[in-house]
């Protein structure tokens, strides 16, 4: 029944009245969201709206308090992170979460091993796994990190670490990708380059990204989900979200005003969400 559901599911990701409380504080208060396969969704919202928490629930880092989370029609809430990963959902982290004492190449190779079926093998040599090595090299080239192949992850520059973070996420070939503030802490020019990179490596996949930078949001997303106080108050195309009164009221009005002012004045510090 699961296989049939996975094949014909209408949505890649579906949240049904998902709730999450930490102690007495309810952070996610009945979130609903349905993302079609191949859609590219940006989740925006004020600080503390629960965007990262929502990602942590979907990826299995935390368990939800109630509600259903479905991946291709299959219930995944309550599963362990590695079980969810094996079902084809991968995520990145807001703070780079790398294998610090392994080289760039080894980081990527680790990230592809499970998806290529090598599991816990200790009777095969890594050097002989041509598909794993090729895939790791391929991702490394996409990230433009070939020259840094043998550098330990801890010795990379910040921007390189962010790139590797994305690389580890997409290397396993998951169909659903969650990126948690992929451009956080980057300069303007790095951000522009990075948006292109993300677009390239997530082509054809279902993408959910948490983002503060409106430039990135409009650059990456077909649809925007607005999360305010643990609820999705709007989920639509950028134009219609922009026009949505509730969104204007709750959040986007001020941000968009900032962005327009910024666009008008050309150079300006990063304003979005802060």
């Amino acid at each position, binding site marked *: 029944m699961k296989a049939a559901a996975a094949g014909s599911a209408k949505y890649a990701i579906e949240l049904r009245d998902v709730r999450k409380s930490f102690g007495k504080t309810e952070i996610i208060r009945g979130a609903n969201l349905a993302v079609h396969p191949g859609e590219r969704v940006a989740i925006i919202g004020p600080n503390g709206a629960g965007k990262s928490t929502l990602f942590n629930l979907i*990826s299995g880092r935390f368990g939800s308090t109630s509600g259903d989370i479905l991946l291709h029609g299959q219930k995944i809430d309550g599963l*362990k*992170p*590695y079980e969810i*990963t*094996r079902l084809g959902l*991968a*995520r990145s*982290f807001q703070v780079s*979460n*790398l*294998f*610090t*004492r*392994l080289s760039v190449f*080894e980081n990527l*190779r*680790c*990230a592809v*091993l*499970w*998806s290529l079926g*090598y*599991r*816990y*093998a*200790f*009777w*095969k*040599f*890594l*050097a002989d*796994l*041509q598909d*794993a*090595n*090729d895939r*790791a*090299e*391929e991702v490394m080239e996409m990230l433009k990190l*070939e*020259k840094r*192949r*043998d550098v330990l992850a801890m010795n990379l520059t910040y921007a390189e670490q962010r790139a590797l973070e994305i690389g*580890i996420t997409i290397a*396993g070939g998951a169909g659903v990708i969650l990126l948690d503030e992929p451009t956080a802490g980057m300069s303007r020019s790095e951000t522009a380059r990075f948006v292109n990179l993300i677009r390239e490596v997530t082509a054809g996949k279902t993408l959910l990204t948490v983002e503060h930078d409106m430039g990135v949001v409009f650059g990456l997303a077909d649809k925007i989900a607005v999360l305010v106080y643990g609820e999705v108050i709007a989920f639509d195309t950028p134009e219609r979200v922009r026009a949505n009164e509730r969104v204007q009221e709750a959040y986007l009005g001020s941000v968009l005003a900032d962005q327009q002012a910024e666009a008008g004045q050309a150079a300006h510090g990063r304003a979005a969400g802060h």
Partner: protein
Amino acid sequence: MGRTHESRPHYHFKPWNVGRWVLWGLFALVLLAAPKVFSANFQVSLLSQMGIAIVACLSYNVLLGQGGMLSFGHAVYTGLGAFVAIHALVAVGAGSLPVPVSLIPLVGGVAGAGFAVVLGFVTTKKAGTPFAMITLGIGELVFAMSLMVPEFFGGEGGVSANRVTGEPVLGITYGPQIQVYYLLALYTFVCTAAMFAFTRTPLGRVLNAVRDNPERVEFIGYSTQRVRYIAFIVSGFFAGIAGGMYALNFEIATAEVVGAANSGAYLLFTFLGGAIFFFGPIIGAVLLVLAGALLSEFTKAWLLYLGLVFLFMVMYAPGGIASLIMMNLRVAAFGKLRPLLASYLALFGTGVAVLVGAAALVELVYHLQLGDTIGTQFNFLGATLDVGRLDSWFGACFVLAVGLALFELTRRQFELQWGVTQEEIEREIKRREAAI
């Protein structure tokens, strides 16, 4: 680096792959030739013990260095391996077990892996500090059991067996120590190679990933608990082989082999040798045997010295001897070692002064405490020290204080110089990268 890139993107020729064959050849040669150079009986016995310790420390490092698991109870697996092996040897002697004597270490290995399957299931449920606590608890548990179950552990006297049993194969009886040595050397070489091979496998690499960042490992599809568990069993297998080698070498196993002192020694010497490099524990194992056999001949306070050395290493060289070697090899590879030599000489000289001062003081205190039995006057490096005389104490303190001051000065100087050298190397690397 990317020279062969276009044609075979996954293949990168590294010059030290050739060096690797040379290194393994040298290792085999050393194992073969060692008893020719050190041929006295007690020397061959020490060499045999080194082989055992090498396998034990390397198996410990599968946990510590490769998996980031700090175990305080590794002797459980070497020790239980030794006990099962000695019982197997007894059974072979009685004719009830048709296993050649040369395979006894493997029996220990299977036993070690078996105990790791059972005990490791609980242990590897947790990582970090809880893991360390559980290993400590299991270590105490098994040691307590050894006194409660004399049927298996043999009580106070332990269990002994005779390895000279059955028909000799090709004239090998394992009577003479030299024959045992070569058998153990073979096991040492094969186990070392097998454990090195393990580091090049998918599981071996993901184990490193678990050490570095267990959380992320869960998000690339791996259960960290399962990775730790399998690695623990692999470690237990090789630990058990070391135990079996021990049983064959000493023909006896007593309760101490599962005790905390042994677990502590594995931890201490693996760390001293260097846990972050594969070959570090080999150095540590050699030191383990030398410290136990030779240092204890020089001075009764040898454990105290060992503690001091350990403290010193944790503070100044947390990567152990192996990392000191590798860091200097790197400097040498960039042709920048020569300017450092003067500093090394100064560090060595002042270090010796500190050592002499500290040792004199330690010996004085030791003789003060135990003066009734070992006398209050003793010979220390040609000088006669007396706990009753003020100038002995004053002299020791003076040498220590001056030594420490000079050492600290040279150390600071060296640190600056080292930093500059490293920066030069970094720049050189950047330049080479840009040149590709």
